[in-house]
């Protein structure tokens, strides 16, 4: 990549300085913390803000997993460190997302995440992942106040190749097996301040200083997309990966609605207008604290800044120049610590809604096929608009109550290179289908798969049975050579080598019993059997033979009785 790595250089220098500084105490490994905010206009006028708070700690992950080895956590959140150590976690990724990232319009996400919650973890080679996973899930749901304990064996998966470790590889033998991996997603999980507040507690400066000052729940949730992330990975401390430490990256991506002004062709935002909070300081614990604004995200729309940036640069991404302006919070606040930062304001001219961006090379969309309560199908469209063949991994995870028929799998355009299918077991395991596909250049491939809906036991339905059941987002994983539509600040970030795209989750209705009906049905059936069935059964099964003449008719008997009674009365 021919990018000018200005911020990389800066980061390296800082890391270098930081590492060479004498440690305050012996035995405590070095920690470094940086915070960054990357703002840009998306093609439809929305503004995306990507926060990245990352802590690197030079303690080896294997040492880290034993609580006895680490006494001082420093700025690393102890609550998380203990969970990681206790459950022998090597790598942990948790995202909580509200809304769907619209790749078609917004480009590739900086931190891809499916709607709802997603949790996946690699355990250390010596760990018993089967045993550790439920504990980890419970601990994480406690840590972030999320409803992750809905994850059970029927919603956990072990994808073979789609979710490889992101960080440094600790042992070679784990690279071929997914025995140490667990993946789970909850598409219905809603994200709110009850998740956000515990998440901010993991930040070294919290919301007291630095970029955390901008966090005000009301504005962060009053937006078009909101995604919290927590990523714990082993981290290479040098180029050759001779030294391995750990890295905790806390991310937040927010997409704000277009900041329209009275003049419809001018968009204008400032940190204050978007976040409803001013930014007054840098986090003193961070060696780097920056706000970066991309000034030419939308083609043909020029952006002007109200403030002179500390640094400007141009990144060339896939033949397109992207101008970026960096505001270093330390240098802005150093001289005048008491004075708040001048509000950064960005305005763009000649903007219109109907400027449609060039769509990203890879797109995925999935929809449900069929109506009614019996057969249904999943149809996935994967578009490759790159002029070369792209190899992708396609992962489909379907709950057991959709009876998937693998023989109905049809793939058009794309070639299936390999296939890994794990069939479901009722109430214990879900279906998982992983395909390695080769997408021809400039093509749209269609995948379709049919299923039948199973009947659940009536106690297995959720309280809102008529809402329907969700099918996890399908996951497309690929390795990108170039990233023209990336939203991320650092195109050279190693996370971006692997691109994940998540399709929409599907809401499918299952046949539901009428829950108020059993009582009525019991009453009705009893009545019908008592009155109608007996008579009809008699009538149809009895052979009729001439019976001896009855002695008296009922009516005459009754009449006589009445007559007798009246006689008695008269007597």
């Amino acid at each position: 990549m021919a990018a000018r790595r200005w911020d990389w250089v800066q980061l390296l220098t800082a890391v270098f300085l930081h590492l060479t500084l004498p440690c305050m105490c012996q035995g405590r490994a070095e920690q470094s913390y940086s915070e960054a905010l990357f703002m840009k206009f998306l093609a439809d006028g929305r503004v995306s803000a990507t926060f990245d708070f990352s802590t690197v700690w030079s303690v080896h992950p294997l040492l880290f997993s034993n609580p006895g080895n680490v006494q001082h956590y420093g700025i690393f959140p102890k609550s998380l460190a203990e969970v990681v150590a206790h459950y022998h976690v090597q790598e942990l990724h948790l995202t909580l997302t509200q809304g769907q990232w619209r790749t078609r319009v917004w480009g590739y996400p900086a931190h891809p995440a499916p709607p709802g919650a997603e949790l996946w973890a690699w355990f250390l080679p010596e760990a018993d992942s089967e045993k550790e996973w439920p504990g980890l899930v419970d601990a994480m749901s406690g840590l972030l106040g999320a409803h992750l304990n809905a994850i059970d064996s029927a919603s956990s998966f072990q994808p073979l190749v789609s979710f490889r470790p992101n960080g440094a590889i600790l042992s070679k033998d784990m690279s071929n097996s997914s025995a140490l991996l667990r993946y789970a997603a909850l598409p219905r999980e809603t994200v709110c301040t009850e998740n956000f507040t515990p998440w901010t507690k993991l930040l070294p400066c919290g919301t007291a200083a630095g970029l955390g000052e901008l966090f005000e729940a009301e504005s962060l949730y009053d937006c078009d997309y909101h995604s919290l992330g927590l990523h714990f990975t082993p981290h290479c401390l040098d180029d050759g990966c001779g030294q391995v430490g750990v890295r905790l990256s806390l991310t937040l991506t927010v997409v704000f609605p277009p900041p329209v002004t009275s003049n419809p062709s001018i968009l204008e935002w400032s940190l204050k207008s978007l976040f409803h909070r001013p930014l007054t300081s840098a986090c003193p614990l961070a060696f780097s604290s920056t706000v970066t604004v991309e000034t030419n995200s939308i083609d043909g729309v020029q952006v002007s800044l109200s403030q002179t940036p500390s640094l400007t640069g141009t990144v060339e991404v896939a033949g397109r120049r992207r101008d970026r302006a960096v505001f270093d919070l330390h240098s802005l606040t150093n001289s005048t610590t008491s004075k708040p930062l001048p509000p950064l304001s960005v305005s763009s001219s000649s903007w219109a809604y109907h400027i449609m961006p060039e769509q990203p090379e890879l797109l995925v969309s999935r929809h449900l096929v069929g109506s009614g309560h019996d057969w249904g199908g999943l149809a996935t469209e994967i578009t490759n608009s790159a002029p070369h063949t792209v190899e992708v991994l396609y992962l489909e995870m379907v709950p057991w109550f959709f009876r998937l028929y693998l023989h109905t799998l049809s793939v058009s355009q794309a070639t299936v290179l390999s296939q890994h299918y794990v069939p479901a077991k009722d109430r214990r395991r879900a279906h998982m289908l992983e395909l390695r596909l080769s997408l021809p250049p400039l093509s749209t491939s269609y995948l379709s798969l049919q299923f039948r809906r199973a009947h659940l036991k009536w106690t297995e339905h959720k309280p809102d049975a008529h809402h329907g059941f969700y099918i996890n987002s399908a996951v497309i994983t690929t390795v990108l050579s170039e990233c023209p539509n990336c939203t991320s600040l650092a195109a050279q970030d190693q996370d971006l080598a692997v691109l994940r795209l998540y399709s929409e989750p599907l809401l499918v209705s299952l046949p539901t019993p009428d829950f108020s009906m059993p009582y009525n049905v019991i009453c009705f059936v009893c009545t019908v059997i008592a009155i109608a069935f007996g008579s009809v059964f008699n009538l149809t099964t009895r052979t009729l033979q001439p019976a001896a003449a009855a002695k008296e008719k009922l009516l005459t008997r009754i009449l006589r009785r009445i007559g007798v009674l009246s006689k008695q009365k008269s007597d």
Partner: protein
Amino acid sequence: MKLASLLESKRSKKLAGFLIKRRKPLGILLYLCGLVYLGMLPRDEFNRRSFVDENALMVGLVRREFRDSQSISDYAEELADFGVDQEGLMVWLEASFSRIGLEVYSQNYSAVLPAVAGPQAASVSGRSVYGVLRAGRASSAESLVFSAPSGEAANTHGLAVMLSLAKYFKSKNYWAKDIIFLVTTGGEIGVQAWINSYMGNAVKGINAGPLPGRSGAIQAVINLEIDSPKIEYARIMIEGVNGILPNLDLVHVLTHLSEMEGIPSALHMGWEGVRSHGRYSKPDLSDSAHKLYTVASLMAHQAPGLPLAGHAPFLRHRIDSVTVRGVGSGPTAKPLLNLARALEGSFRSLNNLLERLHHSEFFYYAPSRGRFISIGLFMPPLGLLLAPLMLEGLSQWLLARGFRVAAAECSGSGDSSQQQLLHPPTFPFHSILGMVLPSLMSGVLLLILPRLAAMLLTPLGPGVLAAALAWGCLLSIFLPLFSSSTVPASSWHMTKCFSLILQLLLLVTVAMMNYALSISLVLFLPLPSVLSQPSTINGGRLGRVLGQLFLLLCSPPLSILYLCCLYNTLLASNISPSSDIRAVLVGGVGVAGRGLVLAYNSWYFAEAWLFPVVCVVVWPAWLMGWKLACQTVQEKRREESGRGGGKPDSSASHLHSD
């Protein structure tokens, strides 16, 4: 009545004798009771107040804030310029939607109509444009559809209201479900093409292009049709394909909110609506007559189960949908802003939904706004209406087994030597198959004939279609007349019993799916088949001919014609009532022709099963009765019954030799 002991004691024999002797007047009495019962149901005393059953809807709780009447009139002005230029309109709509900030997509479709009603071309093609408003807080798992058709009927103002609401909705951030703004062309076929592609169901005959953009599961659809800048009332149409109705809650949301905004609403063509429309003004009609009229109107539109409005194809996919039609431009008309605000409120209510609409009724009739007749109330009259079939079937069963009234009466007098023997039931399979199979084949012939005609002549017009069907009907009617056979009485009775019970089952089954269709069949099918007699049983030749004539007059083709005439003179909105019998007939024939073409086309496109059901179920059911009425029953049996001491075995043995 204790069925089991019907024939065991003398008392029950007496009862059976009474049943056989008086079955016809009794049946007719029950039938009339059923009709009266049905007629009484729309009265307030017999039905319930409607209410919102789904608490999540929170109807009318939010403040409706839309006030931009200027944008409605601006859009309407711009739209008026396009006139009949559909393609230009679609391009403009695409631009407008994207100016508003929606994701805009379009779908091309083409279809070849199997039959055409007028001089129009058989092949239809068009383009539908839709814009998707993505809800920021949701993951596109659920969506609502706001549709407005554009095409034959001018819907300029409907589109204007839709566009200005789209603009307004876009500025709000409370949406939890995506909203799809859909503009279709080409009437129901455009909607059909769109929803079928959305659901991934390919339909033969419609060549629908792929949908480039989608959203999640559609929770509800509101279809808007307005052709005037001011409206007097909102006419809410609910009937879907195959008589499926949307959940009553959805209807209630719309009626309630339009009421709150000061726009009277009428379910379908409620009498209040008709009155304010000014077409009919019959002040002498009482309130309950108005309600009866409303229910009749609902039933008349539900019974055919054809897509009569833009929302109908959605219901086929179990998506609750309604059409709101703004009607009238009289002096009391209200501006469109009020309706737009009612729609805003409705969408916000639907946006609140946590589950699919399921709480309230799916089978109902609404006699007036705020009241409804639930299925528990309207099913019993059907039982009464079908009672003649039941009684007659039971009597025929007894007769087939040699039960004789005279003997029963004799034995009732206490003489045990006069005890008659009932022989066990013997099924005359030959006779029953000989009745069922040809009738079914005749039905299948009717189903195929239009296709055969289409090979010679495309596209089919209503005349050709009717002629092809009439040819098949006449053939089926005349064959039994000329090949009239003589059958033993027992066999005839058993076959008659079989055909009656079959008819009964058919009508009950149809009622389970489309009550209105069942009721309109009940008006014509049961009585003639109950009353018709072969010669030599209770009537001789004159009775037989009269019965045949009655049957013929109530044959399905003629019944359809009567229903069309009735509909056209009493219920249709576009024709002023006329007392001239000639005009009535001409109008009825016109409606029947259009209906035939619509039914035939909808069978292809919308999976509406009216045409096949009439051909393969209703027509054979009637034809069976006709065949039985054309048969002659052997005299021998009659003589025996006159004596009162015949051997029952004789007819049974004859039957075996048959």
